C-alpha cells in the first residue's frame, strides 16, 4: 500500500542505505585474548559495560546504521551469556536488520571462527569483519564503494582495512589506545598495503622492507602515525583463505602478514583512511579508559549516552559534559565534577567528590568518598570515606569503609574489599584463582582455557558463591577483614605491561624511563651508522662492502642474540640438531645473513654456553667447551662448508678472547687445537688465518703468536702424513 511505497522512498533517501546488495557482517564476540582478565573469566568482553552500555550494543548499532543488513555474531567464550543477552535485547526484533548467533566452544582464535563460519556457508558477498569490542561512527558507503571498484578491476583485492590517523606517544611508542607501535607501508597512489609490522616482529631498531617493494612501486610511504581500526571489509575469498591456510590464527599477525609476504597468490590488501569519523577498538584497559572518555566527549556522536539510550532510562546531558539518568538521589553537599556519567537509581552521599568517572546503575556511594577517573559498574556499594583512583569496579563489588584503591586496579565481580584496606596499584582482584596455565603470547591466548573456566563459572555460580562464602568465613583474607577475592600475582615482565595497559595514566617516571631507552637505542643506531667508516678504512673497499658492513652491523647484534637464544633453548629442551639447524637457517634467511655469519654466531653461542655453564678452573672451562663441541659440532659443521666460514670462526674466536670472553684467552691454543681435532676447522683454515694476520699490527698478533706452536705442528703435519 501507499505507506510501503513512501517507506521505500524514505529508505532510499538515506545516504547509508545506498549499498543495495544485502550487506553482511561477521561480528566476533570474542577477542581471543586475555587482556581483560580477570573480568573476562566471568563475563564475555563484549558484554562489559562501556559507559553503562554493553560494548556489543555500540558495535551492533553502528553496523545497523551503516547499512549492514545481516550480522552473524560469533560467540565463543561464555557464548551462553552472549546469546541470552541478545535474546533479551531488542536486536532480534529490528526491521531489516537480522542478527544470527553462531556458537562454538572449541574455537581458539579468529582463524578458527572464520573457518567455522566458512563451513556454515552463510556468507555470500562482501562482508564487514569486526570484533565485538570495536566502536565506530564511520559511514561505510565510501569504503565499500572503493572496495567494490577495486574488486572489479582486480579480483585479488580481497580486503580493505580501515585505518585512522593517530599519533603515537613519542616516548612510549604507543597509541593513546595502548596498542603497540604499528608500522605500515602504503602505496600512496593505489592505497595498497605493502607492509605491516606491529610489536610482534622481532626486528628492533630498524624497519626492514623487502627490496621487491620499492623495486615495483616507485614511491611508497611508511607510516608510523596511523592506527588500525580493526574494521575490515572482506571479500568471500578471505574465508576460504583461512580455510586453506589452517594455521592462520591471528587476523593481523598471520592473515594480513601472510597475505603480504606470499606473492604466489598475489592477493592484495588495501587501506581506507577515515578522517573525521571515529573508530577504535577496545583492546585493553587503557583503551577502555580512552574510548570511554571519547564517548563522554562525544567524539562518537551519535553513539553517546543521551542519544542512544539503550540503558532503559534516558540519560540527560547537562553542562560541562555531565550525563545523568533519572532517579538519582544525590546529597546537596556532594560534588559531581565534569565529564561524569551517573546511572539511574544511584545514591550519592554527603561531601562525596566524583570526577571524570562513570557510575553505573543502582550504586550506593557513601559519604566523604573520593572517586576519580573510575569506572564503577552496576549495583556497587562503596561505603563511607573510600578513595578510588583510576579503577575499574565490576558489578556487585562491596568496598568497605575507608578502603583505598590505588591507580590501575581491577576489581572483578562480587569482590569485597575490607575496611581500611589499601589495595596496591595495578593489582587485579577476582573471586576466582588465577588460572595456572601462563600463556606468554596474550595475543593468541587460546579461548578454550577461558571458555573452560567460563563454562565452569556458567554452570556453577554456586561454586563462586561457595568460594565467596568460605572467603567470608575466613575473617582475614587477601583483602583485609571480611574481604573476598584473590589478588592476582603479576608474572615477571608482566609488570612492565601493567602500566602500559592499565586504566591509570602513565606515571611520569615510566615515561622518563621510556625516553631514556629510546635515546639509548638511538645511540645504538648511530653506533651502527659510524661503523662503515671503519669499514672504509680498508683500502679497495667498494661501497657494496661498506653497505653490507653497515647493514649487518645494524642487526648482526640481534642476529647473534637470536641465534644464541635459539641455541640455548635447543640445549635446554635438547632439541636434536636437525631442528636446531632448521631454525638457525630460518633466522639466517630472515636477517639475510651469509653462512659465515651463521657459523660465527653459532660458534659464539656455543662458546658462550660453555663459558656460562659452571666451571671452577680454566681446565673446567676447557672441559665445558669440549663437552659442548662434542655434542653440538654437527650444527656448527653444517655451516662450515668452506674455508672462509672456518676462518670466520677463528676470527670470531679471537675476537671473543680479546674482547668479551677473556677467560678463553689463555686457552686459545688448546681450544683451537680441539676445534682442529673435532674437524671444526681444518689446517688450511688455520694457516690462511695465520698468514692473513701476518700484516696485522702487533696487537692483533697476540693469538697468532699463541697459536704459533700449533701452526708449526700443522705445517709439519702434512709431510708426516706423506710419510705414512
Amino acid at each position: 500500500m501507499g505507506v510501503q511505497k513512501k517507506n521505500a522512498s524514505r529508505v532510499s533517501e538515506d545516504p547509508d542505505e545506498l549499498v543495495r546488495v544485502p550487506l553482511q557482517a561477521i561480528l566476533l564476540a570474542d577477542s581471543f585474548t586475555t587482556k581483560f582478565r580477570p573480568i573476562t573469566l566471568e563475563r564475555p568482553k563484549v558484554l562489559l559495560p562501556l559507559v553503562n552500555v554493553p560494548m556489543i550494543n555500540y558495535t551492533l548499532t553502528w553496523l545497523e546504521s551503516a547499512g549492514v543488513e545481516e550480522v552473524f555474531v560469533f560467540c565463543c567464550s561464555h557464548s551462553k551469556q552472549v546469546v541470552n543477552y541478545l535474546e533479551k535485547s531488542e536486536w532480534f526484533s529490528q526491521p531489516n536488520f537480522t542478527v544470527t548467533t553462531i556458537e562454538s566452544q572449541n574455537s581458539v582464535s579468529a582463524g578458527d571462527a572464520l573457518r567455522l563460519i566458512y563451513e556454515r556457508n552463510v556468507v555470500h558477498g562482501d562482508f564487514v569483519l569486526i570484533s565485538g569490542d570495536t566502536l565506530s561512527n564511520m559511514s561505510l558507503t565510501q569504503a565499500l564503494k572503493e572496495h567494490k571498484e577495486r574488486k572489479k578491476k582486480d579480483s585479488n583485492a580481497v580486503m580493505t582495512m580501515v585505518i585512522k590517523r593517530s599519533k603515537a606517544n613519542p616516548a612510549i611508542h604507543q597509541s593513546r589506545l595502548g596498542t603497540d607501535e604499528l608500522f605500515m607501508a602504503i602505496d600512496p597512489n593505489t592505497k595498497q598495503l605493502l607492509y605491516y609490522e606491529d610489536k610482534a616482529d622481532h626486528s628492533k631498531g630498524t624497519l626492514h622492507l623487502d627490496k621487491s617493494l620499492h623495486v615495483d612501486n616507485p614511491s611508497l610511504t611508511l607510516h608510523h602515525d596511523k592506527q588500525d581500526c580493526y574494521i575490515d571489509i572482506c571479500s568471500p575469498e578471505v574465508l576460504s583463505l583461512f580455510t586453506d591456510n589452517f594455521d592462520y590464527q591471528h587476523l593481523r599477525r598471520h592473515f594480513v602478514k601472510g597475505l603480504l609476504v606470499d606473492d604466489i597468490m598475489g592477493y592484495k590488501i588495501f587501506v581506507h583512511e577515515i578522517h573525521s569519523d571515529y573508530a577504535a577498538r577496545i583492546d585493553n584497559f587503557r583503551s577502555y579508559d580512552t574510548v570511554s572518555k571519547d564517548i563522554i566527549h562525544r567524539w562518537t556522536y551519535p553513539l553517546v549516552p543521551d542519544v542512544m539510550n539503550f540503558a532503559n532510562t534516558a540519560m540527560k546531558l547537562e553542562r560541562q559534559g555531565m550525563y545523568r539518568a533519572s532517579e538519582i538521589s544525590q546529597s546537596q553537599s556532594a560534588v559531581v565534577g565534569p565529564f561524569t556519567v551517573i546511572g539511574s537509581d544511584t545514591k550519592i552521599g554527603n561531601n562525596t567528590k566524583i570526577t571524570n568517572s562513570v557510575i553505573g546503575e543502582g550504586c550506593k556511594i557513601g559519604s566523604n568518598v573520593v572517586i576519580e577517573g573510575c569506572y564503577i559498574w552496576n549495583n556497587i556499594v562503596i561505603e563511607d570515606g573510600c578513595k578510588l583512583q583510576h579503577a575499574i569496579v565490576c558489578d556487585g563489588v562491596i568496598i568497605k569503609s575507608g578502603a583505598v584503591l590505588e591507580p590501575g586496579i581491577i576489581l572483578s565481580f562480587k569482590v569485597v574489599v575490607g575496611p581500611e584496606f589499601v589495595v596496591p596499584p595495578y593489582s587485579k582482584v577476582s573471586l576466582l584463582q588465577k588460572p595456572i596455565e601462563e600463556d606468554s603470547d596474550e595475543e593468541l591466548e587460546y579461548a578454550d582455557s577461558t571458555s573452560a573456566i567460563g563454562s565452569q563459572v556458567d554452570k556453577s555460580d554456586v561454586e563462586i558463591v561457595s568460594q565467596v562464602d568460605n572467603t567470608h568465613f575466613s575473617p582475614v583474607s587477601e583483602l583485609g577483614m571480611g574481604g573476598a577475592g584473590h589478588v592476582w600475582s603479576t608474572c615477571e615482565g608482566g609488570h612492565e605491561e601493567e602500566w602500559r595497559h592499565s586504566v591509570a595514566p602513565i606515571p611520569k617516571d615510566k615515561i622518563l624511563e621510556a625516553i631514556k631507552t629510546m635515546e639509548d637505542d638511538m645511540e645504538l643506531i648511530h653506533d651502527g651508522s659510524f661503523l662503515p667508516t671503519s669499514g672504509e678504512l680498508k683500502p679497495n673497499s667498494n661501497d657494496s662492502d661498506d653497505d653490507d658492513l653497515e647493514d649487518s652491523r645494524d642487526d648482526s647484534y640481534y642476529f647473534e642474540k637470536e641465534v644464541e637464544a635459539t641455541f640455548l633453548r635447543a640445549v635446554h629442551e635438547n632439541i636434536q640438531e636437525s631442528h636446531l639447524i632448521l631454525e638457525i637457517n630460518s633466522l639466517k634467511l630472515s636477517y639475510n645473513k651469509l653462512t659465515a655469519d651463521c657459523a660465527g654466531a653459532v660458534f659464539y653461542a656455543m662458546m658462550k654456553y660453555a663459558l656460562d655453564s659452571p666451571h671452577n678452573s680454566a681446565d673446567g672451562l676447557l672441559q665445558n667447551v669440549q663437552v659442548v663441541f662434542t655434542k653440538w659440532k654437527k650444527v656448527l659443521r653444517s655451516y662450515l662448508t668452506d674455508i672462509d666460514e672456518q676462518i670466520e670462526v677463528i676470527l670470531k674466536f679471537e675476537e671473543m678472547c680479546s674482547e668479551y670472553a677473556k677467560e678463553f684467552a689463555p686457552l686459545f691454543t688448546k681450544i683451537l687445537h680441539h676445534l682442529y681435532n673435532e674437524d671444526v676447522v681444518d689446517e688450511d683454515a688455520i694457516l690462511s688465518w695465520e698468514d692473513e694476520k701476518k700484516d696485522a699490527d702487533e696487537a692483533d698478533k697476540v693469538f697468532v703468536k699463541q697459536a704459533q706452536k700449533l701452526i708449526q705442528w700443522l705445517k709439519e703435519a702434512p709431510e708426516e702424513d706423506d710419510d705414512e
Partner: protein
Amino acid sequence: MDFQVVVLGGGVSKKLLPLVSQELPNALLPVANRPVLSYVLEYLELSNLKDLIVVVEGEEAAVHVGSWISGAYADRLHVEVAAVPEDVGTAGAIRAISHHLTSKDILVVSGDLVTDVPLGAVAATHRRHDAVVTVMLCSAPISGPSESVSSGGKDKTKKPGRYDLIGLDPTRQFLVHIATGAEVDKDLRIHKSMLHAVGQIEIRADLMDAHLYAFKRSVLQEVLDQKSAFHSLKHDVLPYLVRSQLKSEVLLNGVPQEEENGTEKVISQSNQQMLSQILANASESTFPLRHALGPYGTTSVRNTHKCCVYIAGSSKYCTRLNSIQAYSDINRDVIGEASHLSGYSFSAQNNIIDPSAELGAKTTVGPHCMLGEGSQMGDKCSVKRSVIGRHCRIGANVKVVNSVVMNHVTIGDSCSIQGSVICSNVQLQERVVLKDCQVGAGFVVTAGSECKGEVLAKK
C-alpha cells in the same frame, strides 16, 4: 648570496673512455661543441655566482681545464682551478681545498651537470631551514638509467642502472633517508627512531640526486676532518649527515666556539618555530623540531640538524654527463628539446649550421642538428639529430644519425654512422659502417670495416 661555489670538475673518468683522455678530461668533453663545464659555469653565472673554485683531479687535466677557463671566462668569472690527486674521491677533493673555503655556506656542484633548475630556489631552501645540507633532487631520467656515481665519476665500483632511494618527510622538505648505489638493490632499512620522529616517510625511487649540494661549511669541514675515511660526498658524507640528523654529534664535539653559538641560536629559534607550528597544525611541525620537543617537552632540547631537499620540477632539464649513454643523450637533448641550454640561436630549420661550414650538393641537414665552423660535407650527405664538430671533412653520401662527431674528424665517402661517438682527429676511411660505437681520439678506422657496439681506441 654569499655562497662559495666548488665545481667538481672530476678528472678522466674510466666510464667515459675512450671519449676522455688526459688532454680531454671529463670537464672539457664537448657537448654541442662546448665543453660540458661551460654549461655549469654559465648556469652559475646566470644566478650571479662569479666566485668559483674548480677542482680537477690530476695535474695535467687541471692544466688543460685551467687554460681553457682562463681563455673562455677570464673576463667574466673569477675562477680558481685547484688540482687534487687522482682517486681522492669527492670528499677528498673538498678536504684538499677546504682551506680555501671561508663563506658560511658552500655550494658543491658537479662539473658534468647540465641543468636549468633555478639555483636560487635551492639556495633559498637551504637558507630558509638553516639546513646542514640541501640536496637537489630531480626526477630520474626515463631514457637509460643514469648511474648514481659520485661526481667526478671516480667511484669505479658502481653498478650502472641504479637510481637512489630517497626518503622524504610528509612536507617533502626534508631528507630523512637516502640509499645510494649498491644499497638500492638491497632490502630497505629505515631506522624506527627516524620514523618515530617524522611519523611518516615517503620513499621515492623515481628521484635522483643531481649532485648539487649546499653545505654548511663548518659542518662539512668538521665531518671531513673527523671522518678521514669518507671518500665520496654522496656515499659517505651525505648518508652520514642524514643518519645522524636526530642526534648530531657532529655539531656537538670539536666545533669551533662561535659555531656552537650558531647552533644554539638555531635551536632556540627552531623552538619558537616549533611552538608556532604545533599551534598551527601538528602535522606541519617539521620532524627535527618535533623530536626536539620530545615527549611533552620533558626531554632536553636535542641538538638536531636538518637535511633539506629541493625537488626540481619534472619540466626542468637536469642530467649528468657520467656515461657514454648520457653523453649522447645530452648532446641530442641540448640541440633538441632542451635547446635553450645550448645558448645558440637556431635556424629556421631548427638546426645550427655555422656560416663557415660548407655543404655539398643535395646534402641535407635535418632538424636538431649542429654543424661546427669550418666543417665541410660532400654531396648527398644526410645528417639527422647529430652534432658535428669544427673543421671536419666529410666525404660524399655519408649518413650521420644520432651521433656525435667531434672536431677535426675526417670521414671518407659513403660512410654510415649511427648512434656513435667519434672523437677528435679520428679518421674514417671509405665505406665504414659504425653503429653504436665509440671511436677514441686519433683512431683510424680502415676502409670498409663494419662495427657494431664496439669501442675503437688506440692501445
